[in-house]
């Protein structure tokens, strides 16, 4: 990274006693520990911002006056630790080590002490006197944590000040600690940490300490230097090299060459040390077990997690039917009645038949379908939105994570799969987190089998129409088949896409459960209703109109229309798959966009027919055919936009075409199989 350092210390003795006329206090802390607030609180308007000489890091300096004495305050950059990884860290630690501050004030976040104190652990071994400010005590209090700073103070041998930015009392304790430490300098007591260092296996800590300059370098004690060397800190190594004799340097390098994963070893020690400091000093007054944890243990358990998730998903699907059914009724019968009324009214006024047909068969009837379909989309949006709101969706992704690896995918592929439930395009975009191209293509190829919300709406509607109460069974069988489909697809495509099995572990953060925010949920549903309705309307009505044009004949007899002629021509072939020509066309058009199939079904069954649409459907399509259609439809390619998105993410026309061909073929095969099973069953 090319970070320069210029420690210009020649004499190792730097500790100044705080009888200096203008003591300099440096504020050290991780980002978001509240340093700026403290700095502003201390210095008010007496501050100025500049740059560290030669660097691009901001330097804030100010002063305050207490009891007639002026104290200078420097706000050091927020740093996670004091390593050589970034310019901020190097600038910060060199500033301290050169002995400029008389006192360093380390800020820690009381609500995240295990994390905050890491900086302190990295400071251990630097001999500039410090005080520890435990900030954000109010936040810790809200979390139910009680912190006994006296215990921490005793263990560390320094003054520890509990602090809350808004509480003015803290400031007097701060000034008090500053004064006391300046008069009686205390350095951080870290022998416990050094003991841990000495216990490091395969790391010659003690020997390295002995080889270091006995007075350290600046405020860096030998203990600190040795630890940094073990971590592989190149800047420290460069600096130390200038201070050592040739022979000593050789031995140091030899010792270091035998160290592996030094950062892990020292990191271990630091966390053990932090643990020992906090033991007994932090008490949680809140009962640790939140209400849902017993449920969560089941939800994430290896044995029960999956069955529970599957049960919940199936229940969710069934429940989603409930709000959908009234809308379906409204759509079908409502529009049916409206259509008849309008037809009668217009004909009696002498409106030409072509117009009446257009209005009733193409438009009004299509609207009926739109309304029916929207109900199902709402149902499923509500149910899955609810699961997402309360936080259960994350558990689903967690539990099926190893299913991903059985399919040859990375664990994090669950995320695009879940998104594909809504829309396959989102799923394709979501695969961006997957590192290897081959894995990404495989993930998308499998995600195509996940039914998107458009698929769901049509399938639910058709199932409800043809199978009534048996619809949930159809749904369940679809999901089982989808899983099978994915396993087979994975087997087929895996070898050409995924070379090695890179099984990397995954850690997931499961968000806490929380009560659903009903207002949000309903606002979401309302928005969704609007958007889905508009999109479905456009698609279904458009397709309806197009097919109406293809099927209209002057004498009202559909057998004379273009589409009928084409249809009956291809029917012998399509029947093999259990799809008569009307349903086959619906299947084909669904490649454009899932909802479009409804537009086709609408027109082809209502034009030229004397009965109402529902009856026409039930008469014109047998149960076995309906089942075949449902399967073919579900496993067909997702919409054209999804194809485009797949191409965008994979950059491979070859694969897009392959996967497309595969899915169409699979859909037809499935249609064939299911049709014949259906013939047997019904």
């Amino acid at each position, binding site marked *: 990274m090319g970070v320069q350092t210029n420690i210009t210390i020649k004499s190792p003795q730097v500790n100044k006693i705080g009888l200096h006329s203008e003591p300099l206090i440096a504020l050290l802390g991780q980002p978001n520990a509240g340093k700026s607030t403290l700095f502003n609180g201390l210095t008010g308007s007496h501050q100025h911002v500049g740059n560290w000489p030669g660097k691009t890091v901001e330097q804030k300096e100010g002063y305050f006056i207490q009891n007639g004495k002026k104290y200078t305050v420097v706000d050091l950059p927020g740093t*996670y*630790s004091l390593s050589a*990884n970034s310019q901020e860290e190097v600038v910060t630690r060199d500033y301290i080590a050169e002995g400029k501050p008389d006192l360093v004030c380390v800020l820690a976040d009381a609500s995240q*002490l*295990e*994390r905050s104190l*890491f900086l302190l652990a990295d400071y251990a071994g630097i001999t500039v006197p410090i005080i520890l400010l435990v900030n954000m005590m109010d936040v810790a209090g809200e979390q139910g944590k009680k912190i006994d700073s006296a215990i921490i103070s005793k263990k560390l041998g320094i003054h520890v000040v509990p602090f809350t930015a808004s509480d003015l009392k803290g400031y007097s304790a701060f000034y008090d600690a500053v004064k006391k430490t300046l008069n009686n300098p205390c350095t951080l007591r870290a022998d416990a940490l050094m003991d841990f260092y000495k216990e490091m296996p395969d790391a010659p800590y003690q020997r390295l300490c002995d080889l270091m300059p006995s007075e350290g370098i600046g405020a860096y004690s030998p203990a600190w230097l040795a630890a940094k060397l073990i971590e592989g800190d190149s800047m420290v190594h460069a600096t130390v090299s200038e201070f050592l004799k040739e022979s000593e340097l050789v031995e140091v390098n030899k010792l270091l060459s035998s160290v592996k994963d030094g*950062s*892990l070893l020292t*990191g*271990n020690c630091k*966390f*053990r040390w*932090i*643990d020992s400091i906090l033991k007994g000093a932090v008490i949680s007054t809140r009962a640790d077990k939140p209400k849902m944890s017993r449920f969560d243990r089941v939800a*994430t358990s290896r044995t029960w997690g999956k069955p529970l998730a599957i049960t919940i998903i199936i229940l969710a699907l069934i429940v989603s039917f409930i709000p959908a059914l009234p809308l379906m009724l409204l759509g079908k019968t409502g529009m049916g009645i409206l259509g008849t009324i309008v037809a009668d009214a217009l004909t009696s006024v002498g409106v030409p038949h072509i117009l009446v047909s257009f209005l009733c068969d193409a438009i009004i009837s299509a609207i009926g379908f739109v309304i029916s379909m929207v109900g199902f989309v709402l149902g*499923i*949006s509500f149910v899955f*939105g609810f699961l*997402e*709101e309360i*936080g259960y*969706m*994350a558990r689903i*992704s*967690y539990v099926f994570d*190893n299913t991903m*690896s059985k399919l040859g995918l990375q*664990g*994090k592929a669950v*995320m*695009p799969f879940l998104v594909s*439930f*809504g829309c396959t*395009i*989102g799923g394709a*975009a*979501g695969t961006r*987190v997957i590192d290897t191209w081959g894995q990404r293509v495989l993930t998308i190829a499998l995600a195509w089998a996940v039914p998107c*919300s458009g698929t769901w709406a049509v399938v639910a509607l058709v199932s409800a129409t043809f199978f009534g109460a048996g619809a949930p069974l159809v749904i369940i069988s679809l999901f089982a088949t989808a899983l099978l489909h994915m396993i087979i697809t994975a087997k087929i495509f895996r070898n050409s896409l995924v070379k090695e099995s*890179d099984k*990397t*572990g*995954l*850690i*997931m*953060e*499961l968000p806490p459960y929380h009560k659903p925010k009903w*207002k*949000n*949920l*309903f*606002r*979401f549903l309302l*928005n*969704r209703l*609007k*958007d*889905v309705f508009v*999109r479905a309307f456009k698609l279904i009505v458009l397709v309806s109109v197009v097919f109406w044009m293809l099927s209209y004949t002057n004498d009202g007899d559909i057998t004379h229309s273009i589409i009928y002629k084409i249809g009956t021509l291809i029917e012998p072939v399509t029947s093999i798959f259990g799809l008569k020509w009307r349903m086959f066309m619906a299947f084909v058009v669904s490649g454009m966009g899932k909802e479009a199939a409804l537009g086709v079904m609408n027109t082809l069954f209502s034009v030229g027919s004397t009965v109402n649409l529902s009856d026409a459907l039930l008469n014109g399509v047998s149960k076995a055919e309906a089942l075949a259609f449902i399967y073919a439809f579900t496993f067909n390619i997702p919409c054209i936009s999804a194809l485009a998105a797949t191409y965008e993410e994979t950059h491979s026309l070859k694969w897009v075409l392959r996967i497309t061909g595969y899915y169409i073929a699979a859909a037809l095969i499935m249609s064939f199989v299911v049709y014949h099973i259906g013939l047997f069953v019904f």
Partner: protein
Amino acid sequence: MLTKLLDLLEGGQRCSLEELAKQLGTDISTVKAQIEYLVQIGILKQVTAEVPTCTGCTGCSEQNRCGLDFTPYLMWERVK
């Protein structure tokens, strides 16, 4: 502690923070602090995915991000 954490990830194991805490005999804040350290030294990397899972790319209203809070999926894995 840290090496034990990494061992738990060997062989494609997946764990939640709760599970790690249980296996390591500590609490979640400590596990998170250790994960953060491993990210800092470049052994682990954080993967975040906040793609809307609320069943919709057909539309979230402009105003209010569809009203639901997207829960980001927060994951960590070893750097290859």
